[in-house]
């Protein structure tokens, strides 16, 4: 029997449709997914992994993994973005657990000699200290902060991505802030 199929319109297709086409081997459909969700993945990875090249490699790996697992995606169980972002964030967390935190370079956030004022100097020193402390946070705490503070996701959305309860995310954030508050107060 002759089957007549309409040409695929990638730009307007919902994520779930693109992923089902990807599961059939349609690389053009998956490219559309990369276009739509690559910027988020790159942003989050660059916040969790200080080395920009390593961050890009992790996102690349996450996308290839999503492609190879696309046939297992079930839209009744999870939203596509939650499913994809979970792959990205988990790989970032795994990467950061493997590598030792790199010390910040000596010339990080150099003081502008033109500014001059003691207050400015102190504020900048405090910011630099806090940035160093941020990079020392456990990967899951940093991931929770990035998803909620930087990406504007709700606690519930972040919880789904991190594969934990909203209460657990709340505790992660509280621990991260308590640590930063203490360091910030010590530097103040």
């Amino acid at each position: 029997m002759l089957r007549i199929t309409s040409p695929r319109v990638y730009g307007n297709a919902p994520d779930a449709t693109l992923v089902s086409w990807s599961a059939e081997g349609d690389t053009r459909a998956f490219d559309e997914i990369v276009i739509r969700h690559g910027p988020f993945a790159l942003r989050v990875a660059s916040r969790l992994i200080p080395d920009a090249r390593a961050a890009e490699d992790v996102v690349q790996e996450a996308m290839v993994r999503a492609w190879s697992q696309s046939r297992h995606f079930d839209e009744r169980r999870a939203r596509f973005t939650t499913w994809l972002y979970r792959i990205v964030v988990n790989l970032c967390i795994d990467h950061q657990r493997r590598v030792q935190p790199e010390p910040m370079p000596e010339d990080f956030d150099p003081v502008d000699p033109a500014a001059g004022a003691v207050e400015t100097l102190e504020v900048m020193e405090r910011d630099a200290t806090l940035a160093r402390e941020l990079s020392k946070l456990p990967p899951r705490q940093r991931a929770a902060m990035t998803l909620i503070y930087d990406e504007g996701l709700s606690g519930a959305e972040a919880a789904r991505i991190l594969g934990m309860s909203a209460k657990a995310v709340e505790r992660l954030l509280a621990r991260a802030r308590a640590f930063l508050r203490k360091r910030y107060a010590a530097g103040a």
Partner: protein
Amino acid sequence: MMTLKRFRALAQSYGADLQRWPQEERGAAEELSGSSEEAHTLLVQERALDEAIAAATAPQDAQHGPQSERDAALVRLRAKVAARLAVGKAQAKPVGRLSWLLGTASHSSPVRVRRFGLATGGVFAIIAGLLIGGLSGPAPAPVGALSALLQPATLDILAD
């Protein structure tokens, strides 16, 4: 009605921006921050930490460059992912029944493998035909009979 304890827990997790707080608790939190001096002070303290965190991450954001650099990163990502998918697809495609004969078939493009398979099959068929023909073909016809066969046939209908 939200308790001050719950308000503190949320403020010390999500910070001073109530938009980050769980949607179902925002209304009660706004109410309490308007009526309780202690709740209001808590928000002021957490706002200071929010600002410090934002200032600390600002150089990190600048480090990742302007929009053009982020666009370039996306282009690189698309190209690298497409290349890896192409390699994966080529390796995953079936290469035909003659793959055992080709040795390197799994690393070749499917089109080349198919052409080579057909050519090899054709050569085998010709050789097999010659061998079978040579061994079991009919005995040659006598010269006289062959000459008779080569003569033009008489068309009786046209003769009339």
